[in-house]
């Protein structure tokens, strides 16, 4: 079979099935080349260290290779791969900081009345220059949860499964992270006026 032309029309799921059937590393390379940049980008934005991010990409793809047989096609492959990425970074940060409450217990508390719900449009249309500064100033947990929701378009359930929290806790965490993001944006934009 001509492998170069074979995968032109293949979906991720088809490439995975073909890899598991043939064990031909060509297919795994296709998945790697498609997602390595995105995985690296996420690791870099979370870990903020280029060397750590590069090492993380390697470890994450080893995990993916070893667990590919467990990919049940219940979700999109991209969602599955990003969940592994976030979990890997969470573990790494916890080990590094010996921090157990990355997604703090404050998630379980009742909502603060002062925290108005920030519209999604505000987040999705924020100037990239400000968004970068806002994300850099947010806590790692807040940053991650906003990336999952707005960058990867993960559902509340998928986020809850990834960080092992309840769906209501995730909703609360998103609401708070958006509120903090808006406050940071206001601070930065005022400074520039």
């Amino acid at each position, binding site marked *: 079979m001509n492998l170069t032309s074979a995968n032109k029309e293949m979906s991720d799921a088809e490439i995975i099935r073909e890899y598991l059937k043939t064990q031909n590393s060509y297919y795994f390379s296709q998945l790697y080349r498609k997602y390595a940049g*995105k995985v690296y980008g996420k690791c870099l*934005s979370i870990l903020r260290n280029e060397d750590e991010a590069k090492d993380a990409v390697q470890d994450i793809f080893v995990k993916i290779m070893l667990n590919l047989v467990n990919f049940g096609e219940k979700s999109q492959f991209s969602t599955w791969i990003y969940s592994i990425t976030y979990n890997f970074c969470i573990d790494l940060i916890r080990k590094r900081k010996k921090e157990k409450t990355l997604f703090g217990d404050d998630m379980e508390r009742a909502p603060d009345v002062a925290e108005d719900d920030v519209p999604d449009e505000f987040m999705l249309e924020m100037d990239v220059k400000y968004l*970068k500064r806002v994300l850099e100033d947010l806590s790692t947990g807040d940053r991650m949860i906003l990336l999952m929701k707005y960058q990867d378009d993960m559902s509340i359930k998928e986020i809850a499964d990834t960080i092992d929290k309840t769906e209501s806790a995730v909703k609360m965490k998103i609401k708070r992270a958006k509120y903090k993001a808006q406050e940071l944006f206001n601070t930065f934009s005022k400074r520039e006026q």
Partner: protein
Amino acid sequence: MAEERNKNSFQRLMEEEYECRFTLPQMMEVERKLQRKENTYRVASDMLDLFFPKIIKTVIGMLGGEDRDENENDRPAPSDSSKPYKPSAPKGPGM
């Protein structure tokens, strides 16, 4: 261009600031390491497939069990298999 416009600020930030820093040489370097790991796992898996049954049999043997399938042919034949087995009578002093 239309696809670019459809991307939200988070997706554009990720592409413009983070993903692009993963250069092609870095990508290839990690890919080579992954291929080496894949080969190592493959060899380890083959070795395990080859030796796992033997290891299990050895462990069972060490625990006092016996592997009938393997040892059946190696065991010396009884001197007279037609006679039913009788435990030997206890021998007391002077018997």
